[in-house]
């Protein structure tokens, strides 16, 4: 076993371990943290495949942004951990196992040796140290796969617009500040200086 192989099995085992912990933890925050661990190890696997751009992008986008939002939401939820009894997990286990099994079978059928075996695709030769995966990816993305890339971008844009359109509503009772007004405020609008005559001198009686 070479060092790379050892790393591969280590990362793969960690991904599976984190995945299992993710679905068996009772506390949802712990689950999310295990998901983060799974992402990190998946990034390690991609790094082994010399896809450093994708690996770092995975950490940047999923760990750095998406999971922070996840944690944010999960922490805010008022979940009574005691109510999430292990009985719940057992109850849904058969259905879960069935779905998992179906997916494994499907994945083996699609990406198994009959379609992606070494006989069909030779193992890629390792690249020299100066090889830039980032440049390669960029060149492919903006030439060969230009249209799929643009279409995906437009679909995402539509999704953003739709999400905002669905959730945007004006509540009549909400109060908000108008910052430009706040900044432009003049002294005369807030402060009134009252000129009063000094009190008259008391005449000695």
């Amino acid at each position, binding site marked *: 076993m070479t060092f790379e192989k050892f790393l591969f099995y280590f990362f793969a085992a960690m991904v599976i371990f984190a995945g299992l912990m993710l679905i068996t933890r009772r506390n949802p925050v712990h689950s999310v943290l295990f998901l*983060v661990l799974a992402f990190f190890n998946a990034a390690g696997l991609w790094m082994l495949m010399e896809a*450093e*751009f994708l690996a770092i992008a995975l*950490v940047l986008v999923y760990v750095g942004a998406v999971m922070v939002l996840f944690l944010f939401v999960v922490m805010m939820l008022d979940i009574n951990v005691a109510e999430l009894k292990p009985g719940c997990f057992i109850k849904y286990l058969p259905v879960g196992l069935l779905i998992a099994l179906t997916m494994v079978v499907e994945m083996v059928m699609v990406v198994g040796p009959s379609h992606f075996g070494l006989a069909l695709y030779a193992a890629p030769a390792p690249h020299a140290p100066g090889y830039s*995966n980032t440049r390669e990816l960029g060149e492919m993305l903006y030439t060969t796969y230009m249209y799929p890339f643009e279409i995906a971008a437009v679909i995402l844009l539509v999704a953003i617009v739709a999400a905002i359109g669905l959730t945007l509503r004006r509540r009549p009772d909400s109060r908000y500040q108008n910052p430009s007004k706040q900044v432009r405020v003049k002294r005369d609008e807030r402060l009134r200086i009252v000129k009063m005559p000094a009190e008259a001198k008391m005449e000695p009686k």
Partner: protein
Amino acid sequence: MDAISNFLASFPSEFPVLWILVRIVVIVLPLMLAVAYFTYAERKIIGYMQVRLGPNRVGPKGWLQPIADAVKLMFKEIVIPTGANKFLFVLAPMLALGPALAAWAVLPFDDGLVLTDIDAGLLYILALTSVAVYGVIIAGWTSNSKYAFLGAIRSAAQIVSYEIAMGFALVGVLVAAGSLNLSQIVHAQEGGILHWFWLPLLPLFVIYFVSGVAETNRAPFDVAEGESEIVAGFHVEYSGMTFAVFFLAEYANMILVSALTALMFLGGWLSPFQGTFMESWFDWVPGIVWFFLKILIFGFLFLWFRATFPRYRYDQIMRLGWKVFIPITIVWILVVAVAVVYKFPIWFD
């Protein structure tokens, strides 16, 4: 037997590993020392700005103050609150410090003086700085305390907002430099102070640094800590060494953001007099000195901000991030892209 010897042989031989370790120590030790004296500088500078003297009792002119603080924190008891998850509680400060140190791996100190010269350096930095928020979030959540939790929630929202503006500012830099490699970004700025990216990317420069201040949870964006509102925010339950590690992480992050701003917008190790008649006068100055001087400028700005500005109101922080910074960065990326395509003179020709 064969398999084991094969396995050992495929390890990189021990000497390079040792060499890398030595280089890591050479970077991290001075960094830790810099962090210690940055805290001293902060107390002194803010002291003078507020017409006080600052620490002046421990050692000559108070120079030993950071050492005394470190020793004091090391010998203090670490209190773990009841109901806190012990593992996560201890892990959180390490998660905060780890990325702050790991990011230095790709920072070039001089031409060729870098631990690992990777091509996706900028991306690596961005990924690591965004991971650093986990320390704060986990600390706040696992402390099992209201104030700590409020701090964590505030920090999460703030970092997600400013991460985007920061990322877009970096997109502008990489469009201008045509590379994600930090050394090549510096090389793209060759040619004296007017050729550095601070001028063509001025809005991005300002936005990057302000977002950096926000990401390090420093005043005026220190709502995650907010002493006057939520005691000490996410690290209210931390004591002794665990607190010290959070402190180290914050200051290491400040130095990191200063170094990154210097690299990407002020030409890193390049001399400001390059290409002028004064170039030969300053030839004897090594590049690393220029780099440190530029870091010092931004380090001082961090302290100056803290002494000057009152804390931002929370809704104003969100407004600044989403409604001001993000639109400006998007517009300026477009401007930079057009300038690069049409080879705008002096910077992009």
